[in-house]
C-alpha cells in the first residue's frame, strides 16, 4: 500500500490560510496581552499561535511552516522556560520573596499609561513555551511523515 499523503493542496484552504494567518498571529498576541483582565492569556494565546502555524503546515507543507517559524520550536521552548524562570527573580532584589509580582508603570506620550509586570513576562514565557511544545510535536510528526 502506498502511504497516503495528507497534503491535498486544497486551493480554498491555501488562499484562506494566507489571509487568516496574519490575523491569527495578531489575535494570539491580542489574547496574550489582554489576558490579565479579559479572557485570554499566555496559554490560550500560545495555542492559537501554534494552531496558526499548523494551519500553514496543512495548507502548504512542512517546509513552508518551518521556514515561516525560522527558529526550531524547541528553541522557543527553551526561551519560554528562561523567561518564565527569570520572571521569578526580580522580587529577590527588592527584598520580597520569590515570585512576588512586581509592577512598573510607564507613561508613554501617545498611548498613555503602560503597565509592565513580572506576571506579563511570565505569561510571555508561558506563551512561547506552549507554542514551542505544540509545534515541536506537530513538526516532529509531520517530519516523520515527510521523510
Amino acid at each position: 500500500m502506498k502511504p497516503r499523503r495528507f497534503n491535498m493542496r486544497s486551493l480554498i484552504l491555501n488562499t484562506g490560510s494566507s489571509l487568516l494567518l496574519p490575523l491569527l498571529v495578531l489575535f494570539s498576541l491580542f489574547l496574550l496581552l489582554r489576558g490579565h483582565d479579559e479572557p485570554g492569556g499566555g496559554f490560550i494565546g500560545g495555542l492559537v499561535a501554534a494552531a496558526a502555524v499548523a494551519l500553514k503546515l496543512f495548507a502548504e507543507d512542512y517546509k513552508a511552516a518551518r521556514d515561516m517559524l525560522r527558529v526550531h520550536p524547541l528553541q522557543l521552548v527553551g526561551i519560554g522556560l528562561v523567561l518564565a524562570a527569570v520572571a521569578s527573580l526580580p522580587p529577590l532584589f527588592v527584598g520580597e520573596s520569590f515570585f512576588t509580582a512586581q509592577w512598573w508603570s510607564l507613561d508613554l506620550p501617545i498611548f498613555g499609561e503602560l503597565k509592565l509586570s513580572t506576571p506579563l513576562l511570565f505569561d510571555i514565557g508561558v506563551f512561547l513555551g506552549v507554542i514551542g511544545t505544540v509545534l515541536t510535536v506537530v513538526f516532529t510528526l509531520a517530519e516523520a511523515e515527510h521523510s
Partner: protein
Amino acid sequence: MLIAVLSCFILACFAPWLHRLGGRHSGWLLALLPASLFAYFASMLPLVSQGHSLQFAYAWFPGMGIQLSFLVDGLSLLFALLITGIGFFILAYGGRYLEKHKDLGRFFVFLLGFMGSMLGVVLSDNLISLFVFWELTTVTSFMLIGFNHEQEDARKKAHQGLMITVMGGLALMTGFIMLGMAAGSYELSTILYSDGLTEHALYLPMLLLILLGAFTKSAQAPFHFWLPNAMAAPTPVSAYLHSATMVKAGVYLLARLNPGLGGTDTWLLMLTLFGALTMLTGIFLASRATGVKKVLAYSTVMALGTLTMLLGLGTETAALAAVTFLLAHALYKGALFMVAGILDHSAGVKDFTQAGGLRHSMPKTTVVAVLASLSLAGIIPLFGFVGKELLLEAVLSASNWHIGLTIATVIANILVVLVAAIVALKPWFGAVVDTPKKPHDPDIALLIGPAVLATLGLLFGLMPFIADKGLLAAAAGAVYGQPIELYLALWHGINLPLMLSLSSLLLGLLLFKVWGGWRQLTNFMHSAEKIGPEVVYERLMLGMTQFAAWQTNTLQNGYLRNYLITTLGTVIIVVGWALLRVNQLELNISFQDMRVHEVAIAVLLIFSALIAVLVRSFLAAVAMLGALGFGVALLYVFFSAIDVGITQVLVETITVLLLVLVLYRLPEFRSLSSTANRIRDAIIAGMTGLLMTILILVITGARQLEGISEYFLQNSGPLGHGRNVVNVILVDFRALDTLGEVFVLALVAIGVYAMIHLRTGALPVTNSDRRAAFNLRRSQKDKAKADAKAEAEASAAASKGEE
C-alpha cells in the same frame, strides 16, 4: 576559613586551563594552593596547641537551622595539615607521574575537589555540612578510582567502592539526624559536650548507623575488600586516599564523636571487636599478597583496624596512641605508596616477586623506601616505634579483654614486620632481577614527596616533642574529650611493650626468611575467598539487577492497553474502596433546574461518545472525540468559565490536528481484540466512568471547608492587578505551579522529539534499503553455496587421490 575550603573547589574548576598553561610543571603550579593552605592552618598551631579551639560560622540555610560552621581543634587541625601537606606532594607527584596521560587536567579537577571535600569533612562543625562533604569525598573518590575509565576493571572497582560507601553514607545520614534530634543541635561543638546522649532512647540505633557509615568508609571487616580494589586508581591517588584522607574519614568521625558517644559498653565492644578483626584480616592478607600496591593496601586496612580498636578502648593512652599512630601511618604510608609508584614508573615493577637488587640503579629511592619501611615496622628510632610502643601500652592497660587484644596486636605486629621486611628488602637488595623498564632514580617531583615524608618520620622519632608539643596532645585531647597530660618519648625504658616489640621483630624477620613457605602454608585462603564478603557483595549486586530486570519486564511490558488496565484498575479499586468505606453514598441529584440547552449538550456528549466507540474508521472516531470535546467546551461556557472553555476548544482543535498527523502512520483499522477482551475493556471503562461520576457528585455534595475561590475572586483585583481571575491565578497566585507545568510541557516536547527521531533513525525502511538488505543476504547465500561447493570438490578430489 570558608575561602580556605572553597578555594580547592574553585581551583578545581580552573585546573584544566591552568594545566594547559603550566604544561609540564602544572602539578607544581597547582600545588601552590595546598602549600598556602598548609601555611594558613599552621598559623593556627600556636593557639590550638594551647588547647583552644577556633570556630567559624556562616549562615547557609538559616531557615532550616543549617549553618556552614567550622571547628578547628587539635584533631581537625592535625587532619587539615595532613591533607594539605601530603596533598602538596601528591599534586606535584601526580603531575609528573601522569605527565603523558591525556586526562591529566581532569585528574587535577578530581584531586582538588577531593581535597576540598576532605577538608570540609574534618573541619565541619555542623553535622549536615559534614555529611555533605562526606558524600562529596565519596563522589570525587569514585571519579579518582575510576580515573582510567576506559578499563572495565577500573570502572567496576570504582563502582564497588561507591556502592559500599554510599550505602554507609545513607546509614550515616540517618544516624546523624537521630543524633541531632537527641542532642537538640546539629553543631558538633554542642553535641559532644551535651550530657545524657548515651542514655538516650535513640542511642543504640544512632550508634549502629553511624558506625556502619564509619566502618564502610574506613574499610573495616567485613567491608574491607573495597579498599584494595580501589588500587585500580592511579598510584598518586592511592597514596593520597590511603595515607591521610578518604579511608581515614571514618576513623576521623569515630575520633570526633568519641567524647559524645564513646565510653559505653556497646561502643567498646563494637570498636575493639571490629577493629581487632580488621587489623588481623588486613595484615594477614597483606602478608600473603605479592603485588606492591596490594601489600600496601592491605596493610592500610590493618592500620585502620588498629585505629578503630584504639578509639574503642577510649583511655587517655589509647587516645594518644591513636593520634600518634595516625600521624606515623600517614607519613610512612604516603611515602611507601609514592615509592610504589616510582617502582612502577621507573622500573615497570608492579609485583615484589619481579624485582631485586634495584639498590644499584635506584639508590636514592632505596634509602627512602627503607626509611619508610623501618617506620612501618616500628623500629627505633623512627616515629613508627613511638606509635607502636603506645599502641602496646594502650592495649596492655585496657580494662577489658586486655589479654586477647594484646595477643591480637602482637600477632599483627609480627606480620607487620614481615610486610615491612618485604617492602624494605625484596625489591632493593639481593640478586639483580631484570625489570620491564631500565630502572633509574626518578626526578625531583616524584622523589621529593616520599623523601620528605620519610625524613619527617625519622625526625619526629628522634625528637617526638616537636610533634607532641604542637599538635598531638591537643588532638588526643579532642579525642579524649578533655585535655591530657601525657607526653611522647622515644625511650620508655625496658618494659613489657618493648619486650613484646622486640620479640615480634625477631619472629617477623624469621617469617620473612620463609615468606614463600608462609604463602604456601596459607593457601587455604584461596578457597576461603570463594565465600568471602566480596562474593556476597557481588551476589547481592547481581540479585539486585536481576530483580530489577524481572520487575521492569513485568511492569513495563510495552503494551499501552496493559498500562491503562493497571492504572484504571488501581484507581477503581483504591478510590472505590475508599468511597464505599468512608462515605455512605448519599447522592442528592435533582434534575429539577436543568435547562433545555444543558440537556441538549448532555445528549450530544453521550451520543458522540457512543459513536466514537462503535464506528469502524479512525477518522470517524477522531471526529466524534472532537465533537465530545467541543461539547464539553460548550458546557464550560454555559457555566461562565470562558477561559477554560476557550482553552478546551483550542486543545480539542490541536488534538484533532495531531491525531490526523498520526493517523497516517497507523495500520488499517482492524479488529484485533477478541470479544472477551472487549467485554473486559468495556467493564473497566464503564466502571471508571461510573466511579468518576460518583466521585465528583460526592465531592461537590460534601464540601466542608470554605473554598479558596472566594479569596481569589476578592483579591485578584487588589493584589493581582487583574480582572481575569483565571489568569491572575495562573500567572500570579499560583505562578510556581504554572512554572512547573511549563517545565512538564518542555519535557513532553523533548520526549516526543527524541522518541520519534530515534524511531525514524532506527527504522529507515525505504525500498532501496530493502533492496540492499536483500542483495546482502543473497550474496551471503551465494558465498555459502560456493564455499560448500568448493569443499565438496576438495573432498571429492581427496577421496579420488586416495583411490
